[in-house]
């Protein structure tokens, strides 16, 4: 909202996923891939990408923190780019490929970032971790950050209220060195 303060207690009373039915009479069909699986869906247009993965596809690894684009807990990759899934409507992504935390591990092996977060104890409560890891995957793909200072700046969209930042940076540096 106003100055970057997250208010995790706030949820819109009109969040469509909180009601049993969409009830708009104007639902929209959309086909998109999530973690490599094609889904053909009919959605209330108010459904955010975050609510799509959590409520419709039962992929609850992606977290709802502030639901206002201020905390980064909802970060996913859409067509390879990291975005806040809470601030975008799923119906806008016809034909897109979405990757969530559940889609990073390949055939049972942890993604190098997942392993690095474990190696460096880069979390405490873990709530921000899926967003941190998806964001870091986007960061590494962008190739813009080299130093710890640059990683810190380009990871600033992911808030960790436990304050695990030092270990998060170390984990990302480890994964970056091996990528």
């Amino acid at each position, binding site marked *: 909202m106003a100055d970057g303060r997250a208010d995790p207690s706030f949820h819109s009373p009109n969040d469509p996923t909180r009601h049993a039915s969409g009830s708009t009479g104007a639902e929209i069909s959309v086909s998109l891939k999530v973690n490599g699986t094609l889904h053909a869906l009919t959605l209330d247009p108010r459904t955010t990408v975050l609510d799509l993965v959590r409520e419709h596809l039962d992929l609850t690894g992606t977290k709802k923190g502030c639901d206002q*684009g201020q905390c980064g807990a909802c970060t996913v990759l859409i067509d390879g780019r990291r975005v806040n899934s809470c601030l975008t409507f799923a119906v806008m992504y016809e034909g897109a490929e979405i990757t969530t935390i559940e889609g990073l591990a390949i055939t049972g092996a942890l993604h190098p970032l997942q392993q690095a977060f474990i190696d460096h104890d880069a979390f405490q409560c873990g709530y921000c971790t899926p967003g941190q890891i998806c964001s870091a995957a986007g960061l590494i793909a962008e190739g813009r950050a080299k130093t710890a200072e640059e990683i810190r700046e380009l990871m600033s969209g992911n808030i960790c209220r436990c304050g695990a930042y030092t270990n998060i940076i170390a984990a990302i540096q480890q994964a970056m060195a091996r990528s």
Partner: protein
Amino acid sequence: MIEFQYSRATDVADALRQIADNPSAKFVAGGTNLIDLMKMDVERPTKVIDITRLPLKQVEDTSDGGLRIGALVRNSDLAYHAPIEQRYPVLASAILAGASQQLRNMATTGGNLLQRTRCHYFYDTSTPCNKRAPGSGCSAIGGHNRMHAILGTSDACIAVHPSDMCVALAMLEAKVHVTGASGDRSIVFADFHRLPGDTPQRDTNFDAGEIITAVELPPKGFARNYSYLKVRDRLSYAFALVSVAVGLELDGDTIKEARFALGGVAHKPWRDPRAEAALHGQPANAATFARAADVLLREARGYEHNTFKIDLARRCLVRALTQAARGTPQSQSSKKIA
């Protein structure tokens, strides 16, 4: 969020037809501000027209040596676009000073211009706000106004424009190309955003039935002597208390041309030709910069919690001019202010 109809526009003409059909429709592209405001019930469009498929995603050279940026170019793509980095580094720097990489990956050039203020009271539908509900009063005057404006305010509104990118565009004297039912027009950047006056509900001189197609940069990019300095409550991912975009043209130590714009201090990116004129032909030193700051802030007015911004703006301007004159622009990753 209220229910709305969703549709996709196929081209600019289709987008204009669709918005003409429904006065309460809104275009969505990046959505990073619109969707936030819809969740808060501040924006209540009954139709949302998705314009992300329109062919407005190119950055092209213009015949006069400038650049034309399509309205749908994402903020991160623009900041890392090589001709922007090389010829207009102040713009790249300003973009990277704003939001987070996730948001910059979504937000578009046109949408950045049209984002609304982050005034707490504008967002809080339980409080009076002349911008959200004209005539209801301003809760920020006499309220929590630490983030608010010190220049160009009115008795109706003391909100600030939140953009960093627009501060650089104002300094660079960009032009905004728009298309509407009556054809194409271009708006010089200084005339795009408005001061609040007694109509704070109108942020811009852009009309509801129009669409931004491009932002054009003139040839002069101040690539040698520039800086974008942003001061905020934390090191990253926060709105400006004060920001300054500076471009200088020097002849030895003498200032041939000086331009600057400020963010975080007014309802629009703040340019002041008289303050800039105080620099022209003068030696590039601290005394000259301080005189320009005196002119800039001659009519500044603090409210209960933001009077500190007057001194802060003075220091930021002097520091940014010093950085630009030395050819040592502010880094957006190292936050040490040199």
